[in-house]
């Protein structure tokens, strides 16, 4: 069944929050593992995580995400996406013709990495994900899901920021770099 319907996927993802608490009182959050990897490379420099930073549980979780994605891709890969016609039209206007797969082939391939659009989307975009989540102290999992569920005001501010940035990139950055 593709995609897995939102009313099944959403609650299952939500249940990861109590599952991590019951397993070891761990806060759901993926971006903290980036900080954890950095601190393994350069200890002492990454004391910016306030709490729960001990242990390799978030790296085990991250490795699990990778393995789970490989399994899904090998055994039940999503077919061509049934995208909203409005999005398809907008992406065609931006010059993307091949909308198959999970990311546009015109941007997210090794050969496109050294073009302006590939470099901007992959290298600059990736940098902003790592820098922004570390600065904000969380990402979609830590702030948008766990933080909002815990009614934390800082997480609401962060999620407003996520959308401000996402809308700016969608309407002002992507039209420039995709041309």
């Amino acid at each position, binding site marked *: 069944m*593709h995609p*897995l319907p*939102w*009313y099944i996927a*959403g609650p299952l993802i939500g*249940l*990861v*929050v109590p599952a991590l608490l*019951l397993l070891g*009182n761990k806060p*759901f959050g993926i971006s903290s593992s*980036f*900080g954890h990897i950095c601190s393994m490379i350069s200890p002492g420099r990454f004391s*910016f995580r*306030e709490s729960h930073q001990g242990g390799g549980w*978030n790296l*085990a*979780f*991250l*490795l*699990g995400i*990778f*393995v*789970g*994605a490989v*399994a*899904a891709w090998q055994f039940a890969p999503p077919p061509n996406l049934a*995208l*909203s016609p409005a*999005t398809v039209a*907008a992406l065609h206007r931006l010059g993307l013709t091949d909308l198959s797969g999970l*990311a546009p082939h015109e941007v*997210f391939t090794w050969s496109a*990495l050294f073009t302006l659009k590939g470099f*901007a*989307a*992959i290298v600059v975009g*990736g*940098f*902003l994900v*790592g*820098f922004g989540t570390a600065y*904000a*102290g969380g990402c979609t*999992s830590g702030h948008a899901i*766990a933080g909002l569920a815990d009614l*934390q005001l*800082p997480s609401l*501010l*962060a999620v*407003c*920021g*996520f959308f401000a*940035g*996402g*809308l700016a*990139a969608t309407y002002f*950055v*992507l039209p420039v*770099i995709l041309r």
Partner: protein
Amino acid sequence: MTLVPYFVLGTTFGFILVEAEVVSWFRIQEMFRFDAFHMYGIIGTAVVTAAIALLIIKRLAMRASDGRPLGFAPKTLGSGVRYVAGGSLFGLGWAMTGACPGPLVALVGAGVPVMAVAVLSALVGTWTYASLRPKLPH
């Protein structure tokens, strides 16, 4: 050995991210263009499910093996600048790569191997933040 349950939970999470197409760059575009309900449905029901679970955990006053109550440490608000500024910078990266941190890693194994470069770049970004941290408003 104690890490195995986290690995198994991560595997389940990664599998769901791919099957629900949360890892798709195109689905993130649909979301930021407000053209489809799919992503909002997923994030919305995830938040509600987690909130109910947290409420139950609090109601039952559940504790960890070390005696501390199960739950999150409250985040310090401060001036709030870090959440708005950091959040906006992440949002830019989210729409450009079409992936937040979990999907970024998932995509490396789901037919978009060049995302490994984006993951490395994200690590450099996190590293850069740690270096600039004393100079940034929080």
